[in-house]
């Protein structure tokens, strides 16, 4: 019984495949001009490429979504670079990802909200990144795989002037280090 189902399935696939091919082959046969035939050959290739590209895009998107779930921003209190205990699981998640992906390197970006002075925020962003890096190292990640960078208050996520916006901007952001 099982075999029959399998056979049917294979046949269905085969027929489906054939049918598709027939449909694709058909136009050059029915049309008189060869130009149209080559066009549809190109079309075919284009469609195939597009499908491939779409699949690749989907794959990347899914990968990004997966990464976004793992690489969550670590949030901080105003004028502080102490990692709150509620934020520790985020860093632990990144550490286990880095252990899975043995070659992945990480950029740890420190950011600040718009309040306070430019210079001090550059230093504060660096300390936030360092605090997260040192916890990653404590969790067993080789320090050579983690690069810190401070952006001070140059690149806020939210431009609003509310405590909500500021809270989102006081963050350490993770990014895969493309430079390797």
């Amino acid at each position, binding site marked *: 019984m099982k075999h029959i189902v399998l056979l049917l399935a294979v046949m269905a696939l085969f027929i489906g495949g054939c049918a598709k091919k027939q449909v694709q082959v058909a136009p050059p046969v029915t049309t008189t001009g060869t130009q149209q035939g080559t066009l549809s050959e190109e079309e075919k290739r284009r469609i195939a490429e597009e499908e491939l590209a779409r699949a690749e895009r989907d794959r990347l998107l899914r990968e990004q979504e997966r990464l976004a779930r793992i690489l969550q921003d670590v949030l901080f209190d105003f004028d502080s670079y102490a990692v709150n205990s509620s934020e520790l699981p985020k860093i632990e998640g990144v550490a286990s990802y880095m252990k899975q992906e043995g070659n992945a390197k990480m950029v740890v970006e420190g950011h600040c909200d718009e309040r306070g002075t430019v210079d001090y925020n*550059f*230093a504060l962003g660096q300390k936030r990144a*360092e605090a997260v890096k040192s916890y990653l190292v404590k969790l067993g990640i080789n320090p050579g795989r983690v690069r810190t*960078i401070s952006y001070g208050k140059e690149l806020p996520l939210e431009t609003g002037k509310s405590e909500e916006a500021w809270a989102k901007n006081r963050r350490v952001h993770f990014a895969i280090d493309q430079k390797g």
Partner: protein
Amino acid sequence: MKRNSVLIIALALACVMICAGAANAKVYLDVYGTTFKKITIGVPAFKGEKTDKSTSGMSDVLNRDLDLSGFFITAPASLIDKELLDEGIEKSQVKFASWRSIGIDLVCKARVQVVGGELSLEAYVYDTLDGSILLAKRYKANTGEWRRVTHRLADDIIFAATGEKGICSSRILFTAGRRNLKEVYLSDFDGQNVTRLTNYRSITVSPSLSPNGKYLAYTSYKDGRPNLYVTDFSSKSEMFVDRSEGMKIGTAWLNNSTLVYSHTSGRTSTIFAFDVGSRSKRVILQRDGILTSPTVSADGSRLVFVSDMYGTPQIFSKGLPSGEVKRLTYSGRYNSAPSYSPKGDLIVFICNVGSFEVCTMNVDGSNQKVLTNDGAVNDSPQFSSCGRYIIYTSSRGGINKVNVMLFNGENKRTLRFTDFAEEQPRFAP
């Protein structure tokens, strides 16, 4: 005999009165007293100003400069009778009593001529009390330089009336741009001749010029991380100061070839002195946590900086080359961005009093005063070389703009350079 002695006494009295009058006339303004009365000055349109298109607006620029200096109240043209506006510029043609009667202390009269692309300006400043000449000067320049000539006249009037050098001819260094696209600019004080000094299409911050103007130091993200560079204007070459990991910000020059900068990396922060000639650096101070915003007193004997060694950003000073570290600020939980007055008497800084405002204190930390009340984030306060003015940025109004005020917080004015947000202004040497 009797008649003679009376005459002598009368003469002596007259002499004393004249001397006293002269002495009064000399000291126009005690500019560093706790309060001073501003001088009211009238600047009618210059003769010939409107005949050449390129020079119209000179008297407007002069009025604006004099207003910005904080020494003067400029009389609006609407206040002045047409008869007075139209009178000649020679002493004999000026009706001093009429000027005096509308409350004007000084009157500036000038004539401008343009001949073959060359501008000549003849300017007089009279004291309306006695018709004495405070300033009489002739200026010659290319027509295109008319603004600069006017700024020089403004500075000359300020110097003649107060003995203080004006800032109308100075230039301002600052950063400006959009998100992720911040460059270093240099501009005349009045917002003219804005020149972009960097073009890295990245984030470039914290520019500072060496006292002789030869070197420009800045931190740029152009290579993917914040590295510290120095550009030599004479050879047009750029050198790395520090490209190790961490945050490097150069904020001050100890002398013409030594840059002082802070480096935060790992557990510690370090303040370095980097010698541009030998490309060598030495440690001035190293601590756990944050050390930043190092600046040096004009005589090079003291360093001020910000540290969080007691939990919040506070300002400290240290004798150079080796001396004790002394805490200067105790009030409030956020004191940052200090800078010395070139006169050596004050430090200007940012304090958090609910919002971030510009403050001053004596160099020992005493006598702290809040000078602004913008309810926003004010930042990067710097004294002018004469120590009379403070420039700073304010985010009041939603976008960072450069402002200028007197050392005591009076006479606040907003400067206009670009359409972008502007930050980290400094008087260029």
